[in-house]
């Protein structure tokens, strides 16, 4: 097999990242035009330059842009979270939703909503923290349930127990959500299905700090993930302190938690994005993580746009669109995998 030179490889990687960027911009423009009120690209341009009508400004700046930005952020967040989890567990099928982390985060938020009506403004900045606490608790629980002194953290056990814990939490969610009054219930049902409901810059602000600190941290730790890919023994042999592993795990959990607090139960992004990234740019995490982030952002933005467009004026929650696209891809990976 021909090994491409370092330079050729770098050119290829750069052009793939650039292509992803271009695609995001294209979908971005399409997304701004899509929705209950159609705006032509020219209208969008005018409005962006400050020349639109009051109504156009309202739609674009107050409804559509924040939602688009949120899609991009949580897409990137879930994707990087999934990449880290796959790297750490050396299991190609790991992601925040198969490991039950999304369910735990969602449950914490649901408990909060059951006691404090979601319509009040207060919870917005509290939600990521709550979701984080729920995600962390669940992750800890799953970690301890699947850890064995004899053979450590078996990847298959991790996933099976994640699925089981997720199912258990789902049952509790049902008990809790049936007690809600109809208005709160509708909100929770849609939120659990994974709807990006932050038509509001405040949600962007609540989410941004998490993404801005944790994504760079993950990129910074890319080398550690590369080494971990070689296996626990080799990593130890190479002198890697395995405590860093836990810090990365915490970062993955925190990313998933923050994203769930804004988007509800969106699965599969954390699974698909890393796979596509690995396929496009190879397994080196320095380049694979940014690629996964871009793919995740692109995927969610596309799903959100489709959800808004396909059955107008009714919206389909993004999580549903992602699941309907994502599950077949997951099954395809499963059918192909050798393990």
């Amino acid at each position, binding site marked *: 097999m021909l090994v491409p030179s370092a330079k050729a490889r770098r050119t290829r990687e750069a052009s793939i990242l650039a292509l992803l960027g271009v695609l995001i911009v294209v979908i971005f423009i399409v997304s701004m035009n899509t929705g209950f009120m159609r705006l032509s690209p020219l209208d969008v341009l005018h409005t962006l330059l400050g020349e639109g009508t009051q109504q156009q400004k309202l739609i674009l700046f107050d409804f559509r842009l924040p939602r688009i930005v949120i899609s991009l952020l949580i897409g990137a967040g879930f994707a990087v979270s999934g990449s880290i989890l796959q790297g750490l567990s050396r299991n190609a*099928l790991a992601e925040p*939703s*198969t490991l039950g982390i999304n369910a735990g985060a969602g449950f914490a938020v649901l408990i909060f909503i059951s006691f404090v009506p979601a319509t009040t403004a207060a919870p917005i900045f509290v939600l990521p923290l709550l979701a984080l606490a729920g995600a962390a608790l669940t992750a800890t629980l799953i970690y301890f*349930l*699947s850890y*064995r002194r004899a*053979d450590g953290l*078996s990847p*298959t*056990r991790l*996933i*099976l*127990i994640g*699925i*089981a*814990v997720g*199912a*258990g939490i*789902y*049952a*509790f969610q*049902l*008990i809790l*959500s*049936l*007690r809600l009054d*109809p208005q709160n*219930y*509708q909100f929770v*049902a*849609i939120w659990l*299905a994974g709807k990006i409901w932050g038509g509001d810059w405040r949600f962007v602000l609540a989410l941004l700090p998490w993404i801005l600190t944790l994504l760079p941290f993950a990129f910074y730790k890319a080398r550690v993930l590369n080494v971990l890919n070689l296996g626990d023994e080799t990593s130890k042999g190479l002198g890697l302190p395995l405590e860093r592993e836990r810090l990365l795990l915490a970062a993955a959990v925190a990313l998933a938690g923050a994203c769930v607090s804004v988007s509800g139960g969106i*699965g*599969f992004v954390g699974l698909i994005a890393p796979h596509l990234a690995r396929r496009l740019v190879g397994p080196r995490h320095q380049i694979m993580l940014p690629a996964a982030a871009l793919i995740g952002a692109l995927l969610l933005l596309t799903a959100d746009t489709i959800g808004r467009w396909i*059955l107008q004026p*009714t919206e*389909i*929650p993004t*999580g*549903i669109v992602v*699941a*309907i696209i*994502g*599950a*077949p891809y*997951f*099954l395809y990976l*499963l*059918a*192909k*995998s*050798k*393990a």
Partner: protein
Amino acid sequence: MVSSTRSTLNPSTAAGDKPVRSRPVAAVTILLLGSAAIVFGLMLSVSLGAADIRLVTVWEAVFRFNPELAQHQVIRELRIPRALAGALVGACFAVAGSIMQGMTRNPLADSGLLGLNAGAGVGLALAFAFAPSLSFMYIMIYCFIGAAVASLLVFGIGSLSHSGLTPLRLTLAGAAVSAMLLAVSQGVAILFHLSQDIAFWMAGGIGGANWTQLKIMFPWVAAALIGSLVLSRSITLLSLGRDVAAGLGQRTRLVQTAGMIIVVILAGAAVSTVGPIAFVGLMIPHITRYLVGVDYRWIIPCSAVLGSILIIFADIAARMINAPYETPIGALIAVIGVPFFIYLASKRKGEL
């Protein structure tokens, strides 16, 4: 004689168990005591509830029915169908689980975990959305179709790969197919503003069961249960492995197809009546195998009895725990089922 030939072969019980023989005595005891427990549970279920009713009154409502009395009406029209539905679907889920575990040699098979319940749910959501006035008969058939599609997807994916249907692969395929089908029914529910109608049903509620549903589902369920008994010997052979079964002259493909049809009917009928209750089909067959050994001619009837008992008493508990509200029985059973699943998953050494 059948039992002795496979006394050392212990196919689909979890790894680490000692090989067990078939235990006909234990099985017969379960069948006898279990039937008594079912009768007792049914009476208890009928007499307990929002208004406690004395057993004498229950007796009278059944044998000396007086349509003037409100209590007799409640017993006849609400409590009895509810108790019977619980018994019936308990048997359905448990036998469906037994057959799946035996045929696939997969200790983690269950109609809930493998996506069949979610498939039936899609069928039901579509029926609610597009034909709200449909009779229960057709709703049930929609559920059959949904469950069949789901099982084709899961088992199709599982067997596409060359290393075959490992428990891990089957469970993951089930989880993915469940997620996808759940998304489809959520989408349909949100689109047609059915969320609240479907929600309680989704959580598994026996409260809505009525005579019409029972009369429609009973022949299907009875036929499927009898079919499973007819098939039970072949399932025991299959549980030794397909090659062994084929070597012994069994037409494995035919048996598997028949088995899957029975499973689809059982899961579809049960889900259409009470909603997607998971983990019954996971737990009961394990407990039964532990008690009666490896012969599916005993496992299947005993599973049916134990499954009935589980659901009857879980339904009573669901009514008592937080009266006057009902706790969703699906959630209640998950509370027991999840630790059971974790126990099964972590007992395995990692090869899975």
